[in-house]
């Protein structure tokens, strides 16, 4: 460390800061003026997961003065394939702690503020108001709309990115009279129609590229240089390595940012997205309904040699990972055309990974005239937890 490592003056750089940011300082588009703008900037990251990983690493390295992070998850083994800000030793720790530690190691000159909470209509405006730019790295529709609405209401730009399997989207919303997320998509899809990453998978490297685009746009907005993605949607297809660009327009009829606004405050986003209200604390052991069986119940049937037909409605590649003994695979999508392979006289237990697809299968089979049906509650994950830990969880 030199004599003047970091200047406490936000309008000056200490000697160590000058050394650290030298490759920025010699870029005419950044220079001392730009680097000081970065030092004075306050950026809020929503989520410290797949997109948050590259965002946190690069925004810290770039010398953003204050970085806020909102997240309430803990690091899990299955995160590490893509959330490179966390390490194996961090499993079980809050993502915020793990990410903040890594960022502080990359750049101790950055102030990191941790919001260990679920972002909600009650706290969003209060958290957002202290920041210049919000970077949306969330993983679900209610939070997407919440972040968008809060940004537009407060007049803050939103560097947006989204990922699915091999495909990414990125743009900037709510910047200089540009469009917002509601201009692009007035309404969310109903739950269940679009598979989530947990159901559909995601290439581990994909968020690196999309998150880097978001970080780049954030830095450009702070610097006031270049042309931002506002009004343009970048589509990235990793499988074919293709980038495309679509025009985005502010929708004059947008209820949030259009000419005749009807939304002036945050709403209930779970309800907006058609998601049933969840109890604040999940009930420890919700009772089974008449169409459900739990893993221990199924195991007891099998142990008694009761005749039971176990129908697995997952995909073939999931069946390859693990399966319940003597189960028969018919993927949910194939069920309508293969329903003839099932017998209404059999006692049928349907299962999938966690119980959602099998619940759909049970509903479908009910309409097809089946009555001796049970959905395996919690799916093969619960089977692994309660009956056979040798079955791997994925």
């Amino acid at each position, binding site marked *: 460390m030199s004599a003047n490592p970091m200047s406490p003056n936000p309008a000056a750089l200490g000697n160590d800061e000058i050394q650290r940011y030298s490759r920025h300082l010699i870029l005419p588009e950044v220079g001392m003026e730009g680097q000081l703008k970065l030092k004075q900037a306050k950026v809020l990251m929503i989520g410290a*997961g797949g997109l948050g990983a590259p965002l946190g690493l690069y925004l810290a390295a770039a010398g953003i003065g204050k970085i806020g992070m909102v997240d309430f998850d803990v690091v899990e083994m299955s995160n590490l394939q893509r959330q490179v800000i966390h390490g194996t030793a961090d499993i079980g720790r809050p993502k915020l702690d793990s990410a903040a530690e890594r960022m502080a190691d990359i750049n101790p000159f950055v102030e990191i503020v941790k919001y260990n909470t679920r972002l909600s209509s009650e706290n969003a405006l209060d958290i957002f108001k202290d920041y210049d730019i919000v970077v949306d790295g969330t993983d679900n529709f209610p939070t997407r709309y919440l972040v968008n609405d809060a940004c537009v209401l407060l007049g803050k730009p939103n560097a947006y*990115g989204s990922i699915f399997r091999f495909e990414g989207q990125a743009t900037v919303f709510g910047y200089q009279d540009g469009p917002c997320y509601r201009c692009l998509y007035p309404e969310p899809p109903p739950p269940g129609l679009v598979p989530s990453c*947990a159901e559909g998978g995601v290439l581990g490297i994909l968020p690196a590229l999309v998150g880097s685009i978001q970080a780049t746009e954030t830095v450009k907005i702070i610097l006031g240089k270049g042309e931002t993605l506002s009004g343009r949607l970048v589509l990235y297809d990793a499988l074919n390595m293709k980038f495309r660009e679509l025009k985005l327009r502010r929708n004059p009829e947008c209820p949030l940012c259009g000419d005749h606004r009807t939304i002036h405050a945050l709403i209930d986003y779970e309800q907006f997205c058609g998601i049933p209200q969840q109890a604040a604390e999940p009930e420890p052991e919700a009772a089974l309904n008449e169409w459900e069986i739990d893993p221990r119940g199924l195991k007891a049937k099998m142990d008694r040699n009761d005749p039971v037909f176990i129908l697995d409605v997952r995909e073939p590649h999931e069946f390859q990972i693990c399966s319940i003994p003597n189960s028969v695979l018919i993927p949910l999508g194939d069920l309508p055309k293969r329903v003839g392979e099932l017998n209404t006289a059999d006692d049928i237990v349907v299962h999938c990974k966690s119980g959602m697809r099998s619940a759909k299968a049970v509903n479908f089979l009910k309409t097809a005239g089946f009555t001796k049906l049970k959905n395996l509650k919690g799916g093969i994950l619960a089977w692994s937890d309660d009956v056979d830990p040798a079955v791997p969880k994925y």
Partner: protein
Amino acid sequence: MAKLMIPTPLRQFVDGRDTVEVEASTVGEALDKLTSQHTELRRHLFSEEGKLRSFVNVYMNDEDIRYLERDKTAIAEGDTISIVPSIAGGKHVG
């Protein structure tokens, strides 16, 4: 011939393909042909009333058809129609 770009979440309904070519003179006709060849896709793109769902956007080249002539937007040889649904990225919320 119009080329339809199929996004990742919907490829499972078109035998895993990323593009489908159909003979059509308007965007509406192209989507109609696409969904009659691949019937499972229909409910993902259209509501029960036959309206394009509000979380699915359709682009003619790089322009949103909502700002052209919607389903009546004419297509010419070499045009590309893109279906762009909203994706959230991440995990279970419900």
